[in-house]
């Protein structure tokens, strides 16, 4: 279970998140929609403390992320503990951010070995299985720059899965891809959803939201404007802003 309560975040004088309350049940898929600058990515990044929140609390399975509460005060955790928390949360970037000097297999196996101190041999075995799962078994020993965008993103998803995370955050996973490569990445996302992975996905793929999401969230100007099942938010939006946004995206 992921719980955000009263999350605020500013960059200088710009208030990017203005009080976010959100609950995500385990095993569900949540899709976040919204115009650029609405705070979607910042929200996602605050869930694994890539962005420090200014106010409010983020909890994953009851564990406060990035802070320790003593009485009424929050104390920021040391880097070591934050890194431990992050190892339980997968993150997939818009630009993949694969490590270019490591092979696909080394990319996938890096974190389990060095962050979770898992057995090296078993991890490489599992990494191969994960690459197979995203359809790239034959690309294990290839460097990221030798792969297409869609293949790179699938390696990045395998890399996130390797940590056996409680939840995976996707930050516009298909926005940097050529149109004909979007499908192969969305297929992997659909498989994960069907397997009961807890996922929060920031995306502009309305079609994906409609079929795969349990909850769709529409954000604007740092607030959640509207949330509910896809049939309600996408087909029967209650707010004008949601309607305007959808008409622009769908046209």
């Amino acid at each position, binding site marked *: 279970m992921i719980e955000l309560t009263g999350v605020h975040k500013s960059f200088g004088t710009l208030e990017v998140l203005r009080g976010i309350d959100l609950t995500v049940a385990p095993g569900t898929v949540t899709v976040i929609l919204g115009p650029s600058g609405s705070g979607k990515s910042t929200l996602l990044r605050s869930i694994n403390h890539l962005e420090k929140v200014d106010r409010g609390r983020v909890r994953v399975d009851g564990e406060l992320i990035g802070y320790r509460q003593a009485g009424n005060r929050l104390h920021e955790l040391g880097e070591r503990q934050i890194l431990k928390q992050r190892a*339980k949360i997968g993150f997939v970037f818009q630009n993949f*951010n694969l490590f*270019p000097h490591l092979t696909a297999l080394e990319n996938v196996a*890096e974190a389990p070995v060095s*962050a979770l101190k898992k057995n090296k041999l078993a991890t490489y075995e599992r990494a191969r299985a994960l690459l197979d799962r995203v359809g790239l078994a034959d690309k294990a020993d290839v460097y990221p*720059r030798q792969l297409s965008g869609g293949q790179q993103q699938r390696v990045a998803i395998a890399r996130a899965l390797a940590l056996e995370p409680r939840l995976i955050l996707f930050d516009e996973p298909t926005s940097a891809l050529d149109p004909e490569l979007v499908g192969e990445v969305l297929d992997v996302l659909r498989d994960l959803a069907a397997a009961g992975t807890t996922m929060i996905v920031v995306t502009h793929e309305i079609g994906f939201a409609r079929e795969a999401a349990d909850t769709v969230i529409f954000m604007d100007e740092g607030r959640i404007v509207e949330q509910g099942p896809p049939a309600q938010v996408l087909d029967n939006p209650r707010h004008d802003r949601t309607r305007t946004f959808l008409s622009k995206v769908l046209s």
Partner: protein
Amino acid sequence: MVPARHPWRWAGTGLVLILLAQFAHGLATNPGWDWHTFTGYFLEKSVMQALLLTIELTLAGAVLGFLGGIPLAAMRLSHNPVLKSVSWTYIWVFRSVPLIVQLLFWANLGYLYDRLQVGVPFGPGWSFSTSSLVSAFGAALLGLSLHEAAFAGEIIRSGLLSVDQGQHEAAAALGLPRHRQFFRIVLPQAMRAILPNAANLLVNLLKSTSIVYVLAIGELFYQVQVIYGRNGRVVPLLMVATVWYVILTALLSILQYYVERYFARGALRTLPPTPWQRLRAAIRA
């Protein structure tokens, strides 16, 4: 299809070849070069010893310089304002002072500080006479290393800055331990930007060792000066030193090529063949 003709290209090539031939002819026939003396001294024992000293100074200066450069770069990139400004000031000062001036300062340290003391701050300590602790060789090594460290620090910093922010984020998001983020993810990628500059610095250091002749240390340049001071054959002996510097630089360049190639893996889709591989392919064809 008839390819376009390039008459000026042919004219230019001809002109350059004529000039080169003329120069080569001069090298062979001008008695001033005195190749007999050159070959007599090129492998002479005192020259060999001096060469060894030059190599020692270069290697020791490079190792100490880069060891000093790492903390300097780390300090300048830290968020701690004190560490940042200390590093900035060090780099400012040691880049400003000419190496030769610095060397003379270190050699005259005993004039400033008669005795040096090691010990617990405000507590007991042991004191040594400065001139016994800092020999001429020590002063030279100290000067070269401190000078190198300032430049190495900036080279390392530039390499670290060249690594994409997304790489830091991905490493952090995966929860990799801090040292692992640095040594496994960031540094190997930074090396690509660090290496060409570091090689430049190393070659520069090799030649800068000739400046320590002011401290009467028997390195290559000092030694040939001693010899031509005795026999008056300036040009052939300068050529002895020159050719050795050129040979050492060539060796460094070859080393640089292969090290750069190693760190290029993954950065290029396919690595170009090495000169050896190209030669072998040409012979086979």
